[in-house]
């Protein structure tokens, strides 16, 4: 494998996960904030809020996971390795 391609793939794999994590980190933070406020206001609704929160966490997390899939493709199944 060309060393330039190797270096570029490794940097790109790091950036794919790192930049992808920013957005879902912010999103999960504000979702957790909303959930905590909701529980503080209405402690009896905790179970329902927790379920919804976990479900929406998983959706946000999957955005980073897409970045991870791109990173894994670059590292283990690189189409430009030729």
């Amino acid at each position, binding site marked *: 494998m060309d060393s330039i391609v190797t270096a570029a793939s490794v940097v790109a794999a790091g950036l794919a996960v790192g930049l992808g994590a920013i957005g879902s980190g912010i999103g999960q933070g504000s979702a957790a904030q909303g959930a905590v406020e909701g529980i503080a206001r209405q402690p009896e609704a905790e179970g329902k809020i927790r379920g919804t929160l976990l*479900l929406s966490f*998983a959706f946000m997390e*999957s955005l980073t996971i897409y970045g991870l899939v791109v990173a894994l493709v670059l590292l283990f199944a690189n189409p430009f390795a030729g």
Partner: protein
Amino acid sequence: MLSSLLALPFAALEVGHHLYWQLGNLKIHGQVFLSSWVLIGALLALVIAGTRKLERDPRGVQNLLEFLWDYISNLAREQIGEKAYRDWIPFIGTLFLFIFVSNWGGALIPWKLIHLPDGELGAPTADSNTTIALALLVSLAYFYAGLSRKGLRFFEYYVDPIPMMVPFKIVEDFTRPLSLSMRLFGNILADELVVAVLVFLVPLIVPLPVMLLGLFTSAIQALIFATLAAYFIGEAVHEHHH
């Protein structure tokens, strides 16, 4: 010290190594078939054992199965609606149980004890072929649900608020299976990789919390896959009132 630890038979990082079986012109990933057959067998054995002698007061396995049935039918009713959910409980339930059992089976069963010539056994859902097949099944299911229940009126959904939505809704039909399959595949593979990297760095105790987190996320992923499948079906059978 380090080299002796690394010589222990821990799971290796083997992304992209497969046990290939030649089937006509197709090369198939044998390790995925082997592990999914084992897990399907275990699931079938559990279900058959639990429903052989049904009692009025459920005990043991029957109790567990009734709890699961309740859980899945509640999930289906919430997403699909009172009218149509009964037809889809088997489909949603099968998806949920298969994905759940394969995620947990991949993490909990010591597959490394079984030696393969190439590749290694693991969760069937950590292979993108499995997840893409499941996601395409969901696509077929919601088209079938909509067309069989509403006929050609199913396509009203594409022009639902305004006709300008048509291109977006058509693109959505393609992005749904893509995101469903990549979400499950990426999550399960990421769990396995994180555990493998940690085991490689610190073989004892330290990976345990991450393994528990992995079990938790894989259970949630099974739930999400089933919920989204039910949601798509529910959207397809939903009656619009004008």
